[in-house]
């Protein structure tokens, strides 16, 4: 009788619990709180936080190779690189490229806001990270979750957890991180610039855009194919107007299903041994640098363009070039409205915003070309 109790206790998780596990529980609870109470990116942070919690329960072996349930999600979904492209399919089906087509100059801004990615890559090398790690960390500056996960799982899978959490944390903090930088780099008069209304975009243009963009970008940067193909296919679904069922499935059901598997898998990579290392702090610091430099470079490029443009653009929309759709565009709109309440910048900011997604995708693909297998 006594033996049964003894066995039960020895085989329970309690005796095997480490301090590291407990610290990870705390991190999981904090993320859970932020997701539920503060609604910071809850669609991802909630499953991620739960993944962190359960993987730090001893003897559950959820991430045990070949047998663990979440390991299977992770292996077939993330390592096989299936989930991020499927998320891009959904994103494509939700994205309106109209503002980019109406004002193609904004494509430049979407590229300009990737400077933080390249700067941070070199800073990370100085910090002692190797090339693959540096690239995985730097891409945080693109503020695009699925691209970050895609690149990190390719180049430095052991950093995937912290890199993804850093990326999603900073995306949730866009309204806090960006405005001070934007205000610092612009004058009141610049923030007041009202932009001319965007021209209407025809259905034909919207249908041609994803096809031409897919071909062009994949010809130039072939390693972007997996993400780019799905992204533009989703967009073609939407703009064609003839496959509403597929559009809806991509936007809703499929997107939601893969988000669940992605969230819990990413969370479950964060065991105490992986996460509680000094380098994780550097990942968060470098991620913030990447994000800030990208914001600044977007604004500065817009100001540079204004030197040559007859019709001035409001430089605040440059900051929306970090992807984080549509949060960054909203921030640009809000900061502009603070200076002039009659200024509705949101649609203008959507241009660099969606162009930023393409920009981040290209930045990641370039790194993949030079560093990947």
């Amino acid at each position: 009788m006594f033996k049964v109790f003894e066995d039960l206790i020895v085989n329970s998780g309690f005796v095997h619990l480490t301090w590291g596990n407990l610290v990870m529980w705390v991190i999981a609870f904090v993320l859970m709180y932020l997701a539920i109470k503060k609604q910071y990116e809850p669609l991802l942070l909630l499953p991620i936080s739960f993944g962190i919690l359960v993987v730090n329960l001893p003897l559950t072996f959820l991430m045990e190779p070949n047998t663990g349930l979440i390991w299977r999600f992770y292996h077939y979904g993330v390592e096989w690189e299936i989930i991020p492209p499927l998320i891009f399919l959904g994103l494509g089906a939700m994205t309106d490229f109209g503002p980019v087509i109406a004002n193609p100059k904004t494509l430049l801004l979407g590229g300009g806001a990737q400077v933080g990615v390249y700067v941070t890559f070199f800073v990370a090398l100085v910090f002692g990270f190797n090339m693959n790690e540096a690239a995985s960390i730097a891409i945080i500056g693109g503020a695009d979750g699925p691209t970050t996960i895609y690149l990190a799982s390719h180049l430095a899978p052991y950093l995937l957890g912290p890199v993804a959490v850093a990326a999603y944390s900073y995306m949730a903090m866009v309204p806090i991180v960006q405005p001070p930088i934007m205000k610092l780099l612009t004058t009141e008069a610049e923030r007041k610039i009202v932009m001319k209304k965007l021209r209407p975009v025809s259905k034909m243009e919207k249908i041609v855009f994803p096809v031409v963009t897919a071909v062009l970008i994949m010809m130039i940067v072939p390693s972007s194919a997996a993400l780019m193909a799905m992204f533009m296919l989703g967009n073609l679904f939407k703009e064609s107007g003839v496959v509403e069922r597929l559009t809806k499935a991509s936007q809703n059901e499929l997107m939601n299903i893969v988000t669940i598997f992605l969230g819990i898998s990413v969370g479950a990579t964060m065991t105490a041994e992986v996460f509680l290392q000094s380098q994780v702090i550097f990942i968060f610091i470098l991620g913030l640098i990447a994000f800030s430099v990208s914001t600044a470079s977007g604004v500065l490029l817009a100001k540079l363009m204004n030197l040559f443009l007859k019709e001035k653009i409001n430089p605040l929309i440059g900051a929306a070039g970090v992807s984080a759709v549509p949060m960054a565009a909203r921030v640009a709109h809000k900061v502009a409205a603070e200076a002039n309440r009659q200024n509705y910048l949101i649609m203008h900011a959507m241009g660099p915003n969606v162009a930023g997604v393409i920009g981040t995708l290209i930045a990641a693909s370039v790194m993949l070309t030079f560093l990947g297998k």
Partner: protein
Amino acid sequence: MASVNAPMEGKVFKINVNVGDKVQMDDEIIVLEAMKMETPIYASDSGTVKEIKVKEGDSVSEDQVLLVIE
């Protein structure tokens, strides 16, 4: 007389004024929901709200007149 138009396509989320209310230029009078975001719409002039042409929950297109200030 000034009309307040929708700066973008979206849904009327909240109307903060009634007909007959006095408003100042830049008062937040309507909240529009577009692309899953709430966007406040401010009065384009000072005066009295003469007519409200939409109700909460309505879908509006770009440039549609939301209300008239006199």
